[in-house]
């Protein structure tokens, strides 16, 4: 059943929705936000249900409901109650319980209220009676005062009476009046006592009534408690039955679920068992195989190990033998060592003796060393003198050397200048030749190459000599390099290209020369041939001339010409 409600306390969650403890339903409320009541038919079960729940809630019975979202955004509470009949019974009972409690309390308090009421009434009566009594007393007091005044007046008159009889009469009347007054008072006292008595009786009655009331109260309370406990027990029974049913239903459903699951489990187990058996068989085969393999391997290893053991045994034997030998050796060594030790002791003694001897030698050597020292000191002195002398010689040598340097420089300069002039001449000749080659052979204009060194400064030699005099070897080498470059430049005044040209020219000239030579030869030949020709002509002319006389001579030469 859908139960649209306002509020609930979240109790525990789970299942389809959030389980909550419902506070109050709101289906009957106009203010329910957007959740229309499910059913509009007032006679329907739902509305009856709703009313019940409403009453339950009014009696503060917490209900367990499920909270769900409505489509339109509101909240709905689904009542978690599956056993309608019991639920209704429970609701009715709860309603009755509330009424019972209320009625019982009312019954009990009724007695108190009644007592209160009686008390007020009594007080009112008491008040009335008191007022009445006071009035009466006042009237009485006034009456008796009058009488008393009368009596006191009577005393005055009696005092005036002189005669005995009159006096007697007056006294009698006085006495009568007094008795009257006393009687009145007595009556009043009686009345009051009577009233007191009735009041006393009333008090006793009231006490009894009160006791009765208290008894009644206790009785009613007992009854109420009995009733309540009875109905509570009933309620408890009902609740128990409801819970029992709930529990039973839950149990049966759980059992069903359980059985189903157990069956599933059984099936699965069976399946698993079969699978396992199959697997076990497989594994057994596998195991058998493995076992055989293992056994084989085992045997192999065993054999190998056996052989190993035998080898090791042999080795052991050998080792034992060697051990024996070693032992013997060691014993022998031991003996040897012993002997050696003995020898050592002897040598030690000898050494000691030797040391003594050496000590003596050492002393001797010391003495000799001292002598040697003295000797060397003397030698040192002599050597010092030698040194001084040599130094003197050395200075002399230096002087000489300086002198030679200057002379060398002068000669060097002379030679330099001579060579230079020679070289310059050569250069000029070379240039001249070059110019001639260019102009005559090659017919090219000749350009004079730059000749800076020809105008070289004359200080060069001066610097050189100076430097030489200063004996700075490093500088001199540089100057040497400069000089080398200078000479190189002189040597290379005709560049390589020109040399090539020259060589080419030379070759060409040589060829030309050869050609010329050939021509000259040929010219000689021709001259000789012309001469021969001439001779032959002469001969021929002679022959011709002779022919006439004789036979003609061969004229080869003529044909050749």
């Amino acid at each position, binding site marked *: 059943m859908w139960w649209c409600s306002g*509020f609930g306390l979240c109790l525990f969650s789970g299942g389809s929705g959030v389980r909550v403890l419902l506070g*109050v339903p709101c289906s009957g*409320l106009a203010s329910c936000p957007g959740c229309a009541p499910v059913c509009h038919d007032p006679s329907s079960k739902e509305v009856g249900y709703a009313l019940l729940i409403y009453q339950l809630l009014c009696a*503060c019975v917490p209900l367990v409901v499920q909270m769900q979202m409505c489509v339109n*955004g509101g909240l709905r509470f689904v009542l978690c109650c599956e056993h309608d009949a019991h639920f209704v019974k429970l609701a009715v009972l709860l309603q009755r319980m509330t009424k019972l409690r209320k009625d019982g309390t009312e019954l009990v308090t009724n007695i108190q*209220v009644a007592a*209160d*009421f009686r008390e007020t009434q009594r007080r009112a009566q008491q008040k009335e009676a008191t007022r009445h009594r006071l009035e009466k007393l006042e009237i009485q007091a006034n009456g008796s005062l009058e009488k008393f005044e009368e009596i006191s007046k009577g005393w005055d008159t009696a005092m005036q009476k002189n005669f005995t009889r009159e006096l007697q009469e007056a006294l009698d009347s006085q006495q009568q009046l007094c008795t009257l007054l006393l009687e009145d008072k007595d009556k009043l006292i009686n009345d009051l006592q009577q009233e007191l008595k009735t009041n006393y009786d009333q008090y006793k009655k009231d006490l009894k009534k009160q006791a009765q009331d208290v008894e009644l109260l206790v009785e009613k309370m007992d009854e109420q408690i009995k009733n309540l406990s009875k109905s509570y027990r009933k309620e408890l029974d009902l609740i128990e039955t409801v819970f029992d049913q709930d529990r039973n239903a839950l149990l049966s459903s759980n059992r069903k679920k359980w059985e189903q699951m157990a069956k599933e489990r059984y099936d699965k187990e069976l399946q698993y068992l079969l699978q396992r058996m199959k697997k076990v068989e497989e594994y057994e085969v596998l195991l058998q195989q493995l076992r055989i393999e293992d056994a084989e391997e085992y045997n192999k290893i065993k054999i190998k190990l056996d052989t190993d053991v035998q080898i090791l045994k042999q080795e052991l034997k050998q080792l034992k033998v060697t051990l024996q030998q070693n032992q013997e050796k060691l014993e022998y060594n031991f003996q040897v060592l012993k002997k050696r030790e003995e020898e050592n002791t002897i040598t030690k003694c000898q050494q000691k003796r030797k040391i003594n001897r050496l000590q003596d030698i050492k002393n001797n050597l010391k003495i000799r060393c001292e002598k040697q020292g003295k000797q060397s000191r003397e030698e040192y002195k002599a050597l010092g003198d030698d040194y001084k002398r040599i130094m003197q010689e050395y200075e002399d040598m230096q002087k000489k050397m300086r002198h030679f340097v200057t002379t060398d420089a002068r000669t060097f300069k002379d030679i330099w200048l001579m060579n230079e002039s020679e070289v310059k001449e050569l250069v000029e000749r070379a240039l001249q030749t070059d110019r001639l080659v260019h102009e005559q052979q090659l017919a090219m204009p000749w350009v004079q190459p730059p000749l800076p060194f020809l105008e070289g400064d004359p200080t060069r030699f001066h610097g050189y000599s100076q430097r030489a005099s200063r004996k700075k070897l490093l500088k001199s080498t540089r100057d040497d390099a400069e000089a080398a470059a200078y000479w190189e430049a002189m040597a290379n005044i005709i560049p390589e290209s020109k040399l090539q040209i020259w060589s080419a020219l030379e070759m060409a000239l040589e060829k030309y020369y050869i050609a010329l030579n050939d021509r000259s030869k040929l010219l000689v030949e021709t001259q000789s041939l012309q001469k021969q020709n001439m001779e032959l002509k002469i001969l021929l002319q002679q022959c011709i001339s002779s022919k006439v006389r004789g036979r003609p001579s061969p004229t080869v030469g003529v044909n050749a010409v």
Partner: protein
Amino acid sequence: MSEFADRLEESSEAQVEMCPPVAKLEPAVDPRRMRRIIAEDTQWSLALVPLLRDLCLQSIVKNFEEKPILNELLPHHKTVVLEKLSPNLPLHITANLITDENYWKRCCIQRWGLSDVSTYGYSWKRMFFERHLQKVIELFIPDVTDPQSVLELVPLCKNYVQKLDITQLLPPVKDPQKLEEADGSDSVSEVGFDGPSIDHFDFGILLNKLTKLEELHVVYGVKGCGMNFEWNLFEFTHRDCQALAEALKSCKSLKVFRIHQSKVSDEKCRTLVSKLLDHPSLRHLSFSHNMIGDRGARAIGKLLNNSKLEKLNVCDNKIRGPGARAIAHALCSNTTLISLNLRLNQLGDEGGQAIAEALLYNETLESLHLGANEMTEPTATALSQVLVQNKTLKNINVSCNRLGVDGGKVFEEGMSHNRTLLECDIRLTELLENAISTHEAQVRRSREICIKVSWRKCLSQCNNYRETGDLHQYCVMRVSTSLLSLNRTYTVV
């Protein structure tokens, strides 16, 4: 000490295992002693040599009065000792030493038999000391008992006593010859008047020392005097009143004070009230079953607005119209009083109307008892106006007043407009039967309406959340607000 005992215990156990069990008593003496198991005695074991530990503990228990050793013991030894301690030990030893509830339970049960501990905050110790002190005060005879005997108790019980319910106070013994009777109830004032130094027990010596006292109930009278009744057994003299008032002023922790059936007259009421003005903690005040008249009521009215009183009970007194007017005047401006009981007074219509008028302005009073107050129709009319206007009153009782048929009608009319009242007692007010039933229906309906109103509030809040789209907040709001309404309903039922 305890460690030593433990070690001994071990060794003795070892010994026990070694030695065969030896019966201490001869078997012929008591065959029962030879049993291995005695069902009733859980401690029973056949024959073993008692453990040194047990001997030590026994000795401690035996000599506890001379040498109380308790807190030095191990916890399980402590429980053993506490179980065996006699409840008759002098209080000056046990009071501040023993906190164990079981010991005090034994003490209580030994002295008073079975008792209900729930009214003492489930503390047996508190119960013991409160009842002990009550007994001492109730049996205190002025000039005979030494006040020192009470004062001696103070340091022992001041930490535990929260409530004193004094049901009788004995008057002084006036006849020296009858001194030995000591009950006080027999001693009658036939003989010469010596002038006792005090008339009853003087609370002044006690109250300022009990720092935890919250509740005090006093009756100046004698219980169960039977046929020895004398008026002077029920006297509450001016001297007593003065002393009591001073004592109350000195007791700053007091929350509840109740003096009943003590013939508190106007003068005495004024004396008491004058000392209770601006009391820092007093919440409940009860003057029930006394003789307070209009002047006393005026004093009480003054007290209402000079204290933090929440509950006032002046039932069964002699307050009339003027007194009620004074109280009503105080009610107009009061913001603390929640419950007011004026049952069995004589307010009359004057008082009833005054109270009703005050309720139009008061916004705190929730419960009002006007039963048996000689009120009639005019009061009913005034009250119906209250029912229409007042929004705080939940409980009203007008039983035993002759409101009459017309008054009932007016009252019903007022009820039909009310939305807050939960209970209305109109028994014995001469209203018609159907009117009563209508009233009941009205009352029930008003309760339902009350619930509905609270829902409405929540719902409007919920809708606000829903409109802003905060659905989570919306749900939370619904749930939490419903709790409030649930609580509310619960208190109603």
